[in-house]
């Protein structure tokens, strides 16, 4: 299992293609999973991904007002808040999950976020109980 799993909505996925076309490399540690909408990622999915061995989860959705399903990205934010809340309650670091908004041409922003998440995953290391106290 990769250190970082990125769940990217179909509309934002184009940014990855653009990155490659423009010679910007996407970190290898990141496994990319396409979802129809960022709102599809619920808290159970985030937790399961971490349980399966990922150190960090990055959810990528569209800019506010730009979701093809109208408000799916709003729901995504609420879901990620819930996931962070659960992580905190478990004594785990809430920074293991993050959500960002990109348009399909913001390939630099996306790659930067993936790099940042990779560094975060490296810093946090494998999941341990009570790590949230650090």
């Amino acid at each position, binding site marked *: 299992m990769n250190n970082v799993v990125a769940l990217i909505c179909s509309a934002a996925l184009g940014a990855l293609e653009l990155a490659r076309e423009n010679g910007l490399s996407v970190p290898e540690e990141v496994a990319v999973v396409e979802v129809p909408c960022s709102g599809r990622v*619920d*808290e*159970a999915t985030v*937790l*399961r991904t*971490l*349980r399966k061995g990922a150190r960090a989860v990055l959810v990528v959705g569209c800019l506010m007002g730009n979701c093809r399903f109208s408000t799916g990205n709003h729901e995504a934010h609420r879901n990620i808040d*819930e996931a962070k809340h*659960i992580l905190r*309650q*478990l*004594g*785990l670091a809430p920074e293991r999950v993050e959500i960002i908004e990109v348009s399909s041409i913001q390939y630099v922003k996306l790659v930067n976020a993936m790099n940042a998440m990779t560094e975060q995953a490296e810093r946090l290391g494998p*999941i*341990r*109980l009570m790590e949230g106290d650090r």
Partner: protein
Amino acid sequence: MIIAEQKEIARIIEMIDGRRSVLVAGCRSCVAVCQAGGEREVAALAEALRLHAAAGGLERSVETVTVERQCEKEWVQEIAHLVEGKDAVLSLACGVGAQVMQALYPEVQVLPGLNTSNMGAPVEQGVYEERCGGCGDCVLHLTGGICPVARCSKSLLNGPCGGSQNGRCEIDPETPCAWELIYRSLVRLGHPELIEVNIPPKDWMPSRHGGPRRIVRKSAVLSDEERDRGVGL
């Protein structure tokens, strides 16, 4: 509907401490509406408990099920095969469902995953407010459709008290003064005179104060023969 909230995960983890196999059992009724114990919340909590076990190197298997209504034996009976052999059932139903579950499976401990709060309604998604006092002797016809027992902090039957200011209750600015609401409602309904009537001391016997309640709907109770023939529950 019944409004409940999930207990803090730390409390739940304390409760299931040492149990190797746990069944998380939710309910599709009230607690699903207030997003405390429906199928989604069951999935999330189960994942949380599995993640906790993995991170702590604990042996724990977590299974899940969500029944239609945990307060009715018919549905709870159906999951016997899932309950069998478990160290505990973590019920995400309201206190009623959790008790029905325990009564049906007396050998397996049922732990309450929720704190059951009150009888209320969703005001908007995510916001649930208490509405009914369960007093057993409803006076909504006298109070413009607003329950003074549940919604007045002092359960006054002849309110408002002197702490009502700008339509708010003195104990919390977020709480509307029920008697202000009652008065406005009576006026809108064309019965302002009802606010001038003194409601006498209430007989609290039909409420919880008279002891745990048992209500029998005679015409629904089966005869012995019907029971013998296996009709109904």
